[in-house]
């Protein structure tokens, strides 16, 4: 996983609430055994006509948003399914940060596993950032994870919060399986105790 430190890039305004995972990546593209290459179908049904041509009004089909690294979106971003293909598609397109007033829980968790930073802000802050992103002359934001703030084009900063573990994993590009495996003794201990208390949970499948 790539480290996340400071990110400066074009922010695409998606002023719509409830952008669900079927919108982010339609289900037919979940039929893959890989994690990569999904950027070309990100937001497919909003972004392309059925013949594959671009819908000119869609934000990521317009300059300067074709190279967006950040999305500023309405409330409840990522609701719906648990498909990790949603953050994979965002990442493959080049999006490393999504800013919204709220995120669906599973999507939120999935982002951190892939080096994407989802940032929760207040409605007032979102409105300001949405306006910044909508300024085609200068839609760049800087997201600083070290100091936990977003720097707006006018120089004003918007602070945000994130729990320490997730912040550390993103900053260091850490894989949490390795970290958990260091707790092997505790897992062994838990299993031994549970096997005593609830032996039926450990029974092998019936023959």
């Amino acid at each position, binding site marked *: 996983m790539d480290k996340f430190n400071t990110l400066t890039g074009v922010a695409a305004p998606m002023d719509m609430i409830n952008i669900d995972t079927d919108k982010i990546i339609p289900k037919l593209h979940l039929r893959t055994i890989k994690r990569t290459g999904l950027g070309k179908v990100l937001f497919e049904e909003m972004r392309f006509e059925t013949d594959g041509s671009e819908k000119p009004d869609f934000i990521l089909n317009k300059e300067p948003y074709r190279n967006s690294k950040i999305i500023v979106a309405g409330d409840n971003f990522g*609701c*719906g399914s648990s498909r990790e293909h949603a953050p994979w598609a965002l990442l493959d397109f080049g999006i490393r940060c999504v800013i919204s007033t709220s995120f669906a829980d599973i999507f939120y968790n999935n982002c951190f596993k892939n080096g994407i930073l989802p940032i929760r802000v207040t409605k007032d802050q979102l409105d300001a950032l949405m306006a910044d992103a909508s300024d085609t002359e200068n839609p760049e934001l800087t997201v600083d994870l070290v100091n936990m703030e977003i720097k707006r084009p006018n120089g004003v900063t918007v602070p945000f919060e994130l729990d320490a573990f997730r912040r550390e994993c993103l900053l260091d590009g850490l894989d949490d399986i390795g970290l*958990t*495996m260091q707790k092997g003794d505790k*897992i062994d201990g838990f299993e031994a105790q549970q096997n005593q208390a609830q032996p039926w949970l450990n029974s092998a499948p019936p023959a």
Partner: protein
Amino acid sequence: MAAPRTLFDKIWDAHLVDTTEDGLSILYADRLLIMEMQPQAFEGLRMAGLKVRCPDKVLGVMDHVIPTHPRDQAIEDPVARMMVEQAYKDYEEFGVELFDLVDKRQGIVHVIGPEQGFTLPGVTLFCGDSHTATHGAFGAFAMGVGTSEIEHILATQTLRSPKPKNMRVTVDGDLSIGCSGKDIILAIIGAIGTAGGTGHVIEFAGSAIRDLSMEGRMTVSNMTIEAGARAGLIAPDEKTFAYCEGRPRAPKGADWDRAIEYWKTLPTDEGAVFDKEVTLEAEKIAPQVTWGTNPEEVAPIDGVVPDPADAPNEDRRRMIQRSLDYMGLVPGTAMKDVAIDRAFIGSCTNSRIEDLEAAAAIARGRKVADGVEAMVVPGSGLIKDEAEARGLDKIFTEAGFDWREPGCSMCIAMNGDNIEPGQRCASTSNRNFEGRQGRDGRTHLASPAMVAAAAVTGRLTDVRELETRSIE
């Protein structure tokens, strides 16, 4: 004396392996259900040289991409075939038990977990699918997770997670005739919204929930995710125990007695505090049907399509307008005037025997309306067998419904079953998102009886206006 705890608190506390200094817990996973959609998790293990820590606590299924045509026919779609073949390889290599496609026990992951007694009260259960909430109907903590989290569970049998908050939704009173668990959960989502439960686990309580069968409870808990919550929970009781008893993976003999003793300690203590409480009166719930493109956009069948001008704020107004444009609906239209092209009875929400019974009681002696294409997809091979033994398949096929092999089918529409652009489908599934059942397709979610009623009349219909018939 210890502070009173909720059902969720008790399960959570009983599975804590460790709590790190930043408050993130390492939670033990008693159960993992895995299907063909997460080959990347096994690939991750392979690349890291890791094994599956507890293969006995993992069950492999295939449901999302598989065709619902007879199982002796090959899977024509090369991509679907590749996913299935990869699953066979992965499960075998990592020692995970699999119900293959000709196994009678094969079916939708959230149907067969309970059916096999793999799902039990008090357990933690995870699966790479958001409708994992279904299993919460047993008083289990069951949560949908992403592929990376599955990989983490496969390798360590644990999950790292902050503890969600407690929320309780109480539905008291008697449900009206013609209403079911589906109408309860749609009414709840309509009341609290698709983000109403975000960050929370919802315990469903009250007499209307207790009065539901296990099938009805599974339907309610199944759609908890559509209210944004991490999981749903219903206190285990005698109905729960009766459902579990004798299932292949349920405890037996002395273990069964010990298990019951433990399960009886699980319900929420009196005085336990919930971070959020919502109450609904069952009597006020009419049969529900969605009009929009997310499950909170729902109305009683005797209601009308709403006017965006009445929305509480600008964000909502634009959302409603977008939904109506997509759905091809005009404000003020009576829901009962909406004509349909397709009807789908199935999915992890509504494909169990009780669901098929409710639909058959409407379908019997009637015909699918001209111009409507209707299909029934049972949730598992065992349900299909039971339905056939009782002649339900005949009721459906005589009425003109297609009777299919089990799978997710047109709920997610990635197996070749889908609706065409512009078509309107009455569906017992769980999501009415744009494109969910096929690009530019329009979905109206409702209960099995309501969908059967729509199929035979050709329009969204108040099932209370149709006579329910004996299926014996």
